Structure formats: structure tokens, C-alpha cells
């Protein structure tokens, strides 16, 4: 069962919000509802599941409702309609006491502007959640120290937040959230207030921590690069609506609509796309069945100067060039084994575009995509350039 289940969750700000939900049901847009009722739609019938141990990113521009959505999940904002199930229990209808217990035990939040308590030391900040739960002094101090140690702030426990840099302050924020040992970490633009270098460092650290922690993380961001970097899955929001949910590749490669497409236009695709997205079905000849004549004819038909040679099981043996093949044909050689070349430029399915770029640059022949010795596809120079330019690429990569 997913740890977080969100079902038709809506938030409408303003008076008579319930009434305005009728317009949501009729499918009216945010602007139309604002005009008709004066209410602002924060989140519009959002539904998604987050699996345990997953980093689920909610991404959207400012005003898209992503910060409202994350606050609906721990009910810092009261939902107008819909349900949020945490471990199967609906938070939206919970009484105050149970809600407090869920917040204490299951959900911790990291804030965009850190939200550290300036009158408390770093240690006291990290202790806060445990203190609220009534954990006794020595135990909570130990747990808080452990979690500060984990984010690399073991030496700063007696400082005040005001004495630390932004990056360090957010580490305290992270340590404060982790000290509770929550099941779910809600991170609201947690790294957005940091400068780009520190931001990248924090992303790396979060991923590193995640390797051992295996927490469920709901990460909010407006930065697509960040979303693609850390997200296992991404939900894209616009005007309070979730427009697409998918893995980073799915979103890049198959944008659900113009909005998403526009969004992903500027992404550095070379970092995200890999060999399987740009390879195409290879023309091959069979080393056991075909001789130079067949090869020559197939190359002439397809307009190729080289062709890959496999066996019936698609095991890659090498390639032959047009010159060698026509020479052999003249000499009436029966098979291709004599002229087989084996200096094959090989990559794997998940080799990134950046690496492919280097390989293909020096190679006279198309790059072979190989898995377990079997030829999966080939990549021609044109495909790399086309993919970088953002035109059609194939999502599932098989294409064969």
C-alpha cells in the first residue's frame, strides 16, 4: 500500500469555498472561478500515490499550488475537499489529537526559509520535535546529536542559527526533521533559498543520505533540473492541477501537453537522456547465413557505408565496411569472417548522452548499444544532435 494517498484533494481560498467546489466539478478554470466567486483555487482535485522509500517531487512555477499542496498533506492548511491518507488513515477528517500524533510521529517538514527558532541553539532546534513529544532530556539530546552528526554539523551544536550560513542552517532544518525519525519527509522548496553550488551539494547529500535512510520524501521545487536530479517520480503542477506524473524520463521524453513541453524545453537534455532514448533499430547481416553479396546489397539499399554483423541470437560479432565487402565480393569470398572488424564503439543502454557525445565524435561508424553481448540498437550522429535539439525520441527505447 502506498504510504501517502491523495484523492481528489482541493483547496479553495476565500469565503463560501464549498460552493466554489461545484465549479471545480464542472471543470471550470482557475480564472473563471475567480471571476465568478472571487475565490482563489489553490489546489484543484489533485490525486496521486507516493510509495514507501520513494522521492516524489512536486514541481511547478510559483502560484501553481505546490506549496499549498504540501501543506494540505500535513494539514497546515485545511483542505476544502478530498482526502489524504497517511498509512491508510485519512488526515483530512482526523480530530486534533490524532492529527498531532501523526505530525509528531510520521511527518516532518523542512522549510524553504529554514524556519529555525532563532532563540534556540542548533542542538535545541534539532531537539524540538522530540521535546514536543515529551522525550526525556538525555535521550532527545542524543538523538538530536546523532542526526546533526549525520548532516555534518556535529561541531556546531551550541551555536545559534543566526551564526550559521544558509546551507548550514538548512542542514539544521534537515536534522531537526530527521531527529524525529519520521516516515515521511516533506521538503518545501528546501534548497531554493541556497545559492546554486550549495544547492547542488545539498542535493547530492540528500541522495546520499537517502541511500541509507530510505525515507519517503515528498520534495517541492520550482526548479526542473532539481526535480529531474533527485526525483524518482515527478508530478508537474499548473494552476493547482497536476498535469503529469511520471519518471524524469517519461516527462522529458513524452510531455503530456504543451505546458509540460514548454517547461522541459530548456532542460539540459544531455544530462537526462541516455543511449536507449536515441538509439534506433540496427540494420544487420547474419554472420552465419549471409555472405559479402547480401551485405553489399543491403548496404546499397539502405545507403550505408558500414553494417553490423550479428548471429541469429543477435550476439554482436563486429562490423564490415562497404569497401571491404565489395572487395571480398569480387574475390568470390563466401563468408564475412575474413573481413570482420571488431574495433566497435560500444555503449550501454543507460550511458548518458554526454558520454555518447565523446565516443561518437571519434568514431567512423555508428555507436553500438550492447547489453550482455547482444546488439540492442545503434546510435548515429544525427540522432544525438536531434535529441539535444529536443525533437522526437523514442521513450521505451526498444523500437526493434
Amino acid at each position, binding site marked *: 500500500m502506498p504510504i501517502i494517498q491523495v484523492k481528489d484533494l482541493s483547496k479553495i481560498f476565500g469565503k463560501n469555498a464549498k460552493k466554489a467546489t461545484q465549479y471545480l466539478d464542472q471543470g471550470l478554470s482557475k480564472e473563471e472561478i475567480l471571476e465568478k466567486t472571487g475565490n482563489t483555487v489553490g489546489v484543484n482535485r489533485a490525486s496521486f500515490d507516493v510509495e514507501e522509500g520513494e522521492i516524489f517531487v512536486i514541481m511547478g512555477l510559483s502560484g501553481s499550488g505546490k506549496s499549498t499542496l504540501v501543506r494540505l498533506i500535513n494539514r497546515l492548511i485545511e483542505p476544502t475537499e478530498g482526502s489524504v491518507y497517511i498509512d491508510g488513515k485519512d488526515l483530512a477528517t482526523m480530530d486534533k489529537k490524532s492529527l498531532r*500524533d501523526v*505530525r509528531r510521529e510520521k511527518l516532518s*517538514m523542512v522549510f524553504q526559509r529554514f*524556519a529555525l*527558532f*532563532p*532563540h534556540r541553539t542548533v542542538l535545541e532546534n534539532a531537539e*524540538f520535535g522530540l521535546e*514536543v*513529544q515529551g522525550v526525556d532530556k538525555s535521550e532527545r539530546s542524543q538523538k538530536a546529536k546523532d542526526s546533526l552528526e549525520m548532516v555534518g554539523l556535529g561541531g556546531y551544536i551550541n551555536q545559534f542559527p543566526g551564526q550559521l550560513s544558509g546551507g548550514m542552517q538548512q542542514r539544521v532544518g534537515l536534522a531537526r526533521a530527521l531527529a524525529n525519525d519520521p516516515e515521511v519527509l516533506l521538503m518545501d522548496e528546501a534548497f531554493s533559498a541556497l545559492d546554486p553550488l550549495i544547492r547542488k551539494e545539498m542535493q547530492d547529500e540528500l541522495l546520499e543520505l537517502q541511500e541509507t535512510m530510505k525515507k519517503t520524501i515528498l520534495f517541492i521545487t520550482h526548479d526542473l533540473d532539481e526535480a529531474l536530479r533527485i526525483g524518482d517520480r515527478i508530478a508537474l503542477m499548473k494552476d493547482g492541477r497536476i498535469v503529469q506524473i511520471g519518471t524524469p524520463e517519461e516527462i522529458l521524453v513524452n510531455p503530456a501537453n504543451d505546458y509540460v513541453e514548454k517547461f522541459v524545453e530548456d532542460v539540459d537534455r544531455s544530462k537526462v537522456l541516455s543511449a536507449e532514448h536515441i538509439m534506433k533499430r540496427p540494420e544487420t547481416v547474419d554472420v552465419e547465413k549471409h555472405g559479402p553479396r547480401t551485405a553489399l546489397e543491403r548496404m546499397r539499399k539502405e545507403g550505408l557505408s558500414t553494417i553490423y554483423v550479428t548471429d541469429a541470437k543477435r550476439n554482436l560479432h563486429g562490423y564490415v565496411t562497404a569497401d571491404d565487402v565489395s572487395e571480398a565480393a569480387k574475390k568470390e569470398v563466401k563468408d564475412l569472417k575474413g573481413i570482420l572488424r571488431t574495433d566497435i564503439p560500444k555503449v550501454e543502454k543507460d550511458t548518458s548522452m554526454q558520454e555518447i557525445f565523446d565516443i561518437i565524435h571519434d568514431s567512423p561508424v555508428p555507436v553500438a548499444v550492447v547489453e550482455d553481448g547482444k546488439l540492442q540498437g545503434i546510435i548515429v550522429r544525427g540522432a544525438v544532435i536531434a535529441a539535444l535539439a529536443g525533437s522526437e525520441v523514442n521513450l521505451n527505447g526498444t523500437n526493434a
Partner: protein
Amino acid sequence: MELMPKIPVAEWISSATDWVTDTFEFLFDFIKNDFGDFIEIFAEDWLMGIPIWLFIVIVGLLAFFVSGKRFGLMAFSVIGLWFIANQELWEELMNTFTLVIFASLISVIIGVPFGIWMAKSKVVEKVLTPILDFMQTMPAFVYLIPAVAFFSIGMVPGVFASVIFATPPTVRFTNLGIRQVSHELIEASDSFGTTGTQKLFKVQLPMAKKTIMAGINQTVMLALSMVVIASMIGAKGLGQTVITGLQRAEVGTGFVAGLGIVILAIIIDRFTQNLNTQRGD
């Protein structure tokens, strides 16, 4: 004008006051007698029981440490107090000090909870704000009249009138301080599952401390400013000397006593300001 007879507001207020005086006589008597006795003991037995030189030394030392081990406040306190003693106004000073202390303490004890209540509820804020405005703009002399009705004359009605006059800043600043705590910190507190009380004592009050202390400082200063007015209904102290100076047209006497009030005001003000530091600043 003839169409509308005069509305007997004054009569209403008077009869209401009479009613309160009669109905709560037991309470007023209790306060007047027991609390009055306590104030007297505090001023005459305790404060005046301390030798003048020792009192000055203690204040001087406190000033030194409170001001962060600097000599300015200490020097001023010692010289100021010595001057008042030299002018033979020490007993008056102690009485004035007592009045200020009791009036401020009661104001804070009443004011802070009201400020918290005001911060928690918009309705309460809407109701209390005009009442506080009224309390502060009504001429302070007016409070003397019911004060005398309830408690006759002496220190107790003086404290009563001072409390009414001096409480509003504490209420206002407490409300302001709590409301000023940033929304994100409140969210952070809520997100960890704090109860209302935990949030108040672990986040809101500590964060509002500076503002609340500024309000308390104002309250103390207002209480001090009531000293002269309260002495018109028999509250002992420097104010009485000022009034005597006024009645006998003795400029010098009035001025010296006034100077004593100024010195006390400066010492108390600097003390409370120096105490107003926050962790993590």
C-alpha cells in the same frame, strides 16, 4: 436643544460606581486593609529597613552587572541615589519606588495574559483595542475619583489608578509581539505537532520576549508618571513633595523632588532596557 433633555450620563456613572462600591465593599475593604498593610510593610519595614549606604551599593553592583560590566549606569545610579539621600528625600523615594513596583507588577500580571488572549483571538482584539485606547486617553485624574470611592485615600487607590493607566502598553505589546512571530515559525511549530500551550511557551512567548519587555518598560514609565497624580489622593512619596511645593509656591522644593523622580525614572528605564536581551541575537 430643548427637544432633547440632557442625558444623565454622569448620574448613571455615579450610581453605577455607588453600586459597585456597596456591592463589593467586602472585597475593597480586604484589599484596602490587607494589601494596604502589606504595601506599608514593604516600603517602611523592608525597603527603609535597609541602610541607605547598603541600598546604594546593592543598586550600584546590580547596575554594573546588568549593563554588561560597564561603569556608566553604575556611576549614574550611585551618584543619583546619593543625591536624593543628600536632599533628605530618601523615605519619599522608597515610597515612590514601592508604588511603581506594585503598580507595574500588577499591570504585568494582568496585562500579559490579556495580551496573549488578544493575540489568539481576532474578536478579543477587536473588543479590547478601543477599551485600551479609552484607558490611555482618559485623563489620568479621572481614575482618582472611583479609586477614592473604592479604597478611600492612601497608597492603595494610588496603585489602583496607576494600574488602570499603565496596563495598556503591556497588553498591546504582548499582542503585537506574539502576532509578529513569523508565519513560517508557527508552521514549523505546528508541523511538529505542538499543542497550543507548547507553541505559546516554546515559540511564541520566547520570540515575543523583546517586544513584551519593551511594553513592560513603557508600563513602568507610565506608572512612574502617575506618581505625582496619585499623591493628590494621599499616596506617599516624591509626588507629595511636588504637590507641597506647588501648594506653598516653593519652586526649589518642587524642583528637587521632581529631579528625584527623573533620576528614579532613568535608573528604572535603563535597568529594564538592559534586562531586555534575547538569546540568539
